[in-house]
Every structure is written in C-alpha cells, then in structure tokens.
C-alpha cells in the first residue's frame, strides 16, 4: 500500500522550483521576480481552495472570486481602520481595525466561510449549468455591491498604506512576504492531501462520481458538498487577503467574473483534482502572463488557445501529461 504516486516527484520538483525562483531573484538582485513568485504562490493557494470544490467535489463554481475578494477587502478594510484609528463599528460593541495578519486571516477565512455557507446552501440545490450560473450570480451581486460602496473606494478600489504586519517578521521585505505565502500554500496543500484521502474526501469524491451511489450507502450528498464548498471558500478567502497585501491594493476586480474564470483556468491548466494541479496551473499562468504579456496585450487569447488544447488533448492538465492518470486507492 506504500506505493508512491507517479506524480510525487513532480510535486516536489514544482514545490522546489517555486521556492527557488525568489532565492535566485535575490541572488541576481532582481526583486521583481520575487513578486512574480509571490503572485504564483497566492494564486496557487486560491486555486487549491477551488480545487477542493471543483476537483474533488465536481462543483464548478464560477463565483470563487467572491471569496477571493472578500478576503482582499477584509485585509483592506481592517488595515485602513487600523491606520486611521477609526473604529469599524461602534454598536453593539466597538470593533476597531487591525494591521496584524494573524487577526486579518481568521476574519477573512470566517467571513468567506459564512458567505459560502449561505450561497452554497442555495446553489447546491441546483446542479450542472444552473450551479455555474447561480454561483456566478452571487459573485456578481457582491461585485456590484463593492463598486457602489464609496466608503471603501467603490469602483476605484482601496489602497493599503503599508503591508500588514506579521509578529516578528518584517513583511515589507519581499522575500519575507513570499515565504509567508509559500508556507501557507504548503499548509493548504497538506490539508488538501489529508482531506482527499480521508473519509470526508472519499464521500466528496464519490458525490462527484455518482451521487445516487453515495445516497444508496446512506450518506446524504448535500451536507458533504456544502462542507466542501465552505472549506474551499475559506482557502480562497485567505489567498485573497494575501493578494491584497501583495499589491497593497484591493479593488472590485478581485471580485469580478474574470477572476473566477482565471481560477478555474488555473485548476484545469494544472490538472483538475490533482494535489499540485493548482500550483502547476498558477506557475504556468503567471509565466504566460509575464512572457506573452510582454509581447502582446492580447495574451489571454493565446492562453485561451492553450486552454482549448488542454481540454481537448490533455484532460488531466499539465500534471496529467507528466504523471499519467490519477490512481485512487
């Protein structure tokens, strides 16, 4: 039973590569590449979250930007209130802002989870195209809400003066911030792997393959899928708060349907349901964005063509190409 998965060495390679980029950048005194690698790590984290719902559960959420954006706005709003010392609310209890990541992260995670609980409970009554559309609709509602909320920048977005703080670490240094994001990504991957192989993950994957079978053994698919949707949103929400810190800026574009689409693209590109699919996907995506974006404004057209190729000829994404089919126990 101790058979190693064919993709394990590839996973280590990807993890090593992502860690190597900023170290090399530092040696070459090219700090921009650290930002690039941080962007990869954060998008990968967001996509690991989506992969839980989409890859394991078969839930094609076209609204995960909502959670990404909620995480982003959580970081933005809390740090704004921390810097201007205005309380966030005064009634029924006074709540102030915070520029501490250890405060911001749990808030981002809990808020994303709560919104997912409500929207998921409604969306999961439907399936197929209807599920895609209803998750999109919820995300669009939140998008329009953000654009019309002048207190926090409306359409223009919200700038964070300084990057939020982490106790004992100077987050203003790009490498430090990268390492924080990288550590969270690795933790999320570990959690994903544990969930995938657990009882819960077994039921979740069974729900994707055959809901009738799952019910026939006495497990109701709905609570399983809802729990997965919520967990998935929490990870993506955490990534969103890091993304706001990376850019020191948050705007409604984080909540846009394009963002939701990008996250789906990352997962499919790397390999749906694969542990490191989102990592491979995010690395490729950011790389394309960087290289092709240097040549042409329309780099997304090329991305579209590549994606078409993946869907038609390499259903397992990049990892599928490299490591072959998934073997479940």
């Amino acid at each position, binding site marked *: *039973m101790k058979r190693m998965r064919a993709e394990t060495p590839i996973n280590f390679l990807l993890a090593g590569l992502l860690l190597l980029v900023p170290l090399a950048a530092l040696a070459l005194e090219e700090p921009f590449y650290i930002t690039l690698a941080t962007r990869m790590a954060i998008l990968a984290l967001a996509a690991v979250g989506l992969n839980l719902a989409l890859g394991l559960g078969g839930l094609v959420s076209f609204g995960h930007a909502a959670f990404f954006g909620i995480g982003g706005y959580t970081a933005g709003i809390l740090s704004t209130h921390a810097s201007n010392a205005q309380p966030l609310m005064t009634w029924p209890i006074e709540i102030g802002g915070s520029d501490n990541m250890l405060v911001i992260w749990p808030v981002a995670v809990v808020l994303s989870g709560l919104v997912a609980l409500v929207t998921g409970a409604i969306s999961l009554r439907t399936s197929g195209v209807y599920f895609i559309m209803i998750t999109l609709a919820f995300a669009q509602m939140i998008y329009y809400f953000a654009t019309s909320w002048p207190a926090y920048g409306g359409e223009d977005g919200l700038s964070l003066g300084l990057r939020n703080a982490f106790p004992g670490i100077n987050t203003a240094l790009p490498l430090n911030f990268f390492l924080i994001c990288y550590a969270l990504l690795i933790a999320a991957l570990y959690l994903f792997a*544990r*969930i995938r*192989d*657990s*009882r*819960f*993950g*077994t*039921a979740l*994957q*069974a729900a994707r*393959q*055959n809901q*009738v*079978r*799952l*019910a*026939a*053994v*006495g*497990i*109701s*698919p709905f609570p*399983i899928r809802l*729990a997965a949707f919520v967990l998935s949103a929490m990870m993506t929400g955490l990534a969103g708060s890091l993304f706001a810190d990376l850019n020191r800026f948050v705007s409604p574009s984080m909540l846009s349907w394009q963002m939701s689409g990008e996250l789906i693209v990352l997962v499919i590109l790397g390999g749906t349901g694969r542990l490191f699919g989102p990592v491979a996907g995010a690395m490729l995506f950011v790389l394309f964005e960087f290289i092709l974006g240097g040549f042409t404004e329309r780099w997304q057209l090329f991305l579209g063509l590549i994606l078409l190729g993946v869907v038609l000829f390499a259903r397992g994404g990049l990892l599928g190409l490299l490591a072959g089919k*998934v073997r*479940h*126990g």
Partner: protein
Amino acid sequence: MAEAILSVRNLRKSYGALTVTDGVSLDLCAGEIHALIGPNGAGKTTLIHQIAGTVKQDGGTIAFLGRDIGGLGVAERARLGLGRSFQISSLAPEFSALRNVMLAVQSQQGSSFHAFRPVMRDPSLTEPALNMLERVGLAGRAHVTAAELSHGERRRLEIAIALALCPRAFLFDEPMAGMGPEGSKSLTGFLNDLRQEAPILLVEHDMDAVFALADRVSVLVYGRVIASGSVSEIRNNAEVRRAYFGEHI
C-alpha cells in the same frame, strides 16, 4: 407467517398515461427470499426504486421495520437498513472495488466528516471491506477500479457494498444478469445462505435461480401483482402460465 419487515401497500406510480405500479402490495418477512418476477417492462425496477427512495411513489405506503418510510430520502432509508443493488450497476467508477465497499463501511460506522485520517491506512475500514469482497469472490480484484471490472464483477461488487451496510433487508435487482451459468450458480448458493442475515426481495429473470431460492414468488404484469404464492403454486397457476410463462413450463 412471521412479521413483515418490509410491507408495501397499494403502491401506485404512473409516468404520464403509463401506469407502472398499479396498486402493488407485498410483504417481505424475516428469513425469506421473496422473488419478484415478470416480463420486461412490468415495473419491477421501478418498484425497487420506490422502495429504496430513488423514485417517489404517487400513492400508497411503504413500511419498513414498522415505520412509514414513504417520505424519507434515499440516504435515510439506507441508514435504516435497506441495502440494494442496481440493475444497471451504479458505482463510483474511479474508485477501486475496495474503496467502493469502504464507502459503505464508513457510512455504516457513522460519521463521514472525519477529514484527516487516510482511509486506505485505516484497518477498521479496509478489513471489513476486504472481507465483503472475499465473500462475493472479488478479493483478488480489490484494487481494480470499478470502471475496469467486468459486467459480472460489477454486479458482485454491488452485492458486496450492500453486505457492508449490514442491512435489515436486501433489495436485489437482477443480480445474476450478465453473469454466465457458473456465476449464477455460485451466486444462487450465496443468496441461499444470505437470507439468514436479512430477507431478500429478489428481482430475477433466471427462473432456475428463482425456483431454487424463493420462499415466495410474486408475479408482476403491467404494474400489477397477478399472483403471489409458493414456487409450486406459481408454477401451477393458470393465469401466470398464460400471462407470463407461455409454453415454458
């Protein structure tokens, strides 16, 4: 007669103008195999679906262990102790045979919300599951995905899954189909013993198996039970002969 574990009364179901279940009443008692036979399209599968909850009846009642289950969902009925096999295999195709059975074992053990312990290294799941595979003769195929199993092997896997639920009643929809004479024979012997664990409502086309196994036979034609009785009563029933067996007997 022993007390009925499963008791269907006046069940009705129509698809548009087509009446598929037309006032069906039947009982399943402890220790027995109750065979349900009838020509193709008679409504046998639809009846099983209604008992299991995958199809909702239009009227009538279904009582299981003295409780009206007609309004419950599929998963709830399974948890109460209805173990079924599907006429058209319904498995998790990407999972191995073993993990398909383990899914049933974990359900039987209670919570599916443990999200940290790897199932493949959990003997409380793998051992009972292997045991069930062994009972249906699939232990050697434990690590083959359900999609790669042969038709007959999938049918046996369905039975292993039902066994793993330790149900109070079995609903088997043509378990012998596609099995070949060898397979049917060994499955017949297996079902013969299984009735001690829980009674079986058995839909089956293989008449040798039905006559060898059934304590009681009900004949369904156009959604209606036209006869119900012991094997010899059914063999000698004129209406059954006319409607169903034709010249065969």
